[in-house]
């Protein structure tokens, strides 16, 4: 683009921003007109973000100031309480999004989380697995208290070779089906589960489908399983 053209575009954009579109629409050269219009759109967007970004930034600063000393974030607060009661059970630093626990004491901690009146996490909202790559698997639990209306997320990481986590099926009864599904899809074993079977897939299925490196078996009971040509489409 020549310097002349750039200057012309800048002039027209300024006019466009002021609301004068006639001159831009009158340009005969289609390429030039396109360039002017795209520059105009860019300028408008930039103007919008600068006006809207300012209050958001202010808010963020205010939040961090309010957050610092004793954190109100439930994952921080309850993570600290867990660490105080069951020393050495944390697997990573406390943070805002989740509480990372070691698998060893999980059954006792879970039992306590439900029975302690000031916590009373009576509802296991969601439980799922996650393939973290690098030979690690993770189980995640979203807990919620109906009485106190607070919630936390607990994560427990295990290696693929020793993918064993204590079962909490007897604490929250829905854990029964949730854990069976996680076992089915990720191959995490839940020690102490009274009915440890696959949930959605047949009992003799091979492999754990939601692991990232899963490959579908060739045949199932003599029936060839069709392969998708290029990954999943």
């Amino acid at each position: 683009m020549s310097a002349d053209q750039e200057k012309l575009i800048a002039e027209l954009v300024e006019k466009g921003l002021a609301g004068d579109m006639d001159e831009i629409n009158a340009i005969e050269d289609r390429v030039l007109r396109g360039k002017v219009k795209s520059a105009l759109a860019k300028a408008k967007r930039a103007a919008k973000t600068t006006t809207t970004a300012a209050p958001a930034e202010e808010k963020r600063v205010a939040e961090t100031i309010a957050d610092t000393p004793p954190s109100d974030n439930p994952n921080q607060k309850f993570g600290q309480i867990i660490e105080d009661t069951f020393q050495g059970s944390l697997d990573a630093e406390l943070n805002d999004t989740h509480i990372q626990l070691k698998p060893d004491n999980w059954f006792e901690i879970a039992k306590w989380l439900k029975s302690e009146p000031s916590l009373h996490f009576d509802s296991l909202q969601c439980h799922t697995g996650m393939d973290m790559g690098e030979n690690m698997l993770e189980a995640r639990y979203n807990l919620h208290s109906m009485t106190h209306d607070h919630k936390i997320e607990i994560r427990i990481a295990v290696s693929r070779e020793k993918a064993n986590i204590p079962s909490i099926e007897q604490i929250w009864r829905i854990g029964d089906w949730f854990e069976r599904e996680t076992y089915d899809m990720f191959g995490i074993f839940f020690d102490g589960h009274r009915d440890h079977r696959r949930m959605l897939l047949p009992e003799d299925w091979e492999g754990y489908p939601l692991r990232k490196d899963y490959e579908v078996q060739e045949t199932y009971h003599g029936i060839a399983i069709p392969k998708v040509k290029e990954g999943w489409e």
Partner: protein
Amino acid sequence: MGVIHGEEMVLNIGPQHPSTHGVLRLKVKTDGEIISEITPVIGYLHRCFEKHCENMTYDQVIPYTDRCDYLAAMANNFGYVVAVEELMELKVPEKVEYIRVIMAEFQRIASHLLALGVYGLDIGAFTPFLFMLRDRERILDMFEMTCGARLLYNYMWVGGVSHDLPKGFVETAFQFLDYFEPQIDEYNKLLTYNKIFVERTADIGVLPADVAISYGVSGPNLRASGVKWDLRRNAPYSIYDKFEFDVCIGDGSKGTLGDCWDRYYVRMLEVKESVKILRQALAQIPKDGDVHQALPKKIRPPKGSIYSRTETPRGDLGFYIESDGSPIPNRVKMRSPAFTALAVLGELAGGWMMSDVISILGSLDIVLGEIDR
């Protein structure tokens, strides 16, 4: 004197059986006519929803959510887009919020009508089913008018909805509501207080509140056990905090708190509440506004994870989404309300008669597409 036990027999119900509402197999151990143990076997409709999600962009997932709970597809769209928007911290225009609430509430009425009608059908009352399906048809017509589809809509998009409300929609909706409200009394006369129906459902399959919570049972099934918990009220999403409505709970007026009749009746009451919300939303909806204005060019949530819940006709629908910052989700987990409702069946149905199992299963209002995903 000892109790005499007969020989136990294992009976299979399903996977192809009209009263299982889809492809569900129940392994029932019976001692004469009494159920001693019941084991649901699921997975016949498993379509790898979660695996598919890991191989497509965020917006491509939406049509798949339709096919999970195919009787309340709008509510599933809603749950998913709310989760993604929360992850992206995206704000949608007010008009879009109103349209979404209107659609979700119409969907709730449609879904409850089917649930109530089919429940009557399970028990042997054929006529109410036809009445309710007739009225549900008019709601589906309105959906068709808006987005062209009757069951699987792909209507709610991340940041907006696919089409604006068509001309004349608000008038049609008001006409429908005026026609529909008196119909509820007719359903009550036909089915709710029918002596045979009450005999078959009251005092049957009682679900205590603490068991329900431990099993993660939610929505109308939980409220029927007397727990006043509704996400629209207790953790409002979208613009539900703007509307006046009651959270209906069971009261055990025909039998025991938390029996099948309560679960049925809470749905009937909720239909009335949905009508209330709809009247407010239809009156307040902004006239102007572009429903495509906030659609992001590229849906790329920042790195992180979210667990977000919404109240569908069947209960708490949760989406656990983890993003690695790319346009493709790293993991999408759908926590479906029907899954947890079916899990409690084994606990509920033990000790009841064979014919009561159909009553109990029907009262839980499950959809197998959502259970198997």
